[in-house]
């Protein structure tokens, strides 16, 4: 299977979502907040900042290396045309609908289940939801590039 430059760049995005989930989601699950008390906890707050900086550094390094390699391997210039716009609008439409739907489901679960409300995992669930939607959107975009 030969992938075009655009398809490879979408694969890079998919790779980022997966790596982000593997490296950073466990931290957010382990340190899920039971309330907003953390604002007063300076040590926890500094720990969160360290994690955020780690995430930013990780993103910069990942994208710099990936896109440098991409430019070295694919010398051709990337032309953005109407087909790209059509594919990205379809993919973003799906992503938005999924996000909307899953947010409604999450709100419904939270309203009906008080144990989840107090578990403090809301932030974690929203993060998982965002990452999941991003992953589905990218996979769908790749599928459209391969088939349309």
């Amino acid at each position, binding site marked *: 299977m030969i992938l*075009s430059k*655009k398809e490879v760049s979408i694969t890079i995005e998919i790779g980022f979502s997966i790596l982000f989930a593997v490296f950073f989601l466990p931290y957010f699950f382990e340190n899920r907040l039971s309330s907003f008390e953390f604002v007063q906890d300076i040590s926890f707050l500094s720990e969160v900042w360290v994690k955020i900086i780690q995430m930013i550094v990780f993103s910069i390094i990942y994208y710099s290396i990936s896109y440098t390699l991409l430019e070295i391997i694919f010398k051709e210039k*990337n*032309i953005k*045309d*109407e*087909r*790209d716009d*059509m594919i990205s609008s379809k993919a973003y439409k799906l992503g938005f609908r999924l996000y909307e739907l899953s947010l409604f489901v999450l709100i419904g679960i939270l309203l009906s289940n008080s144990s989840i409300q107090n578990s403090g995992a809301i932030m974690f669930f929203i993060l998982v939801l965002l990452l999941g939607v991003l992953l589905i959107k990218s996979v769908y975009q790749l599928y459209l*590039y391969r*088939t*349309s």
Partner: protein
Amino acid sequence: MNLKNILREVRLKKKLTQEELGFSVGVSRQTIISIENYKYKPSLELAMKLSMALNCKVDKLFYFEKDN
């Protein structure tokens, strides 16, 4: 009715590669491949550009084929 085209035939007659044709109308090679394989229906603007680049009338380049 399905929208079909004779883009590949006309392009080959003009001895143009998909990349060259794409470059002349400002789209990628993949877009030309998709149009030739009837997977992507171009906008009116792109259809007109293709017709001008290939010096072929747009209604000859693109046509409707009735369903069986």
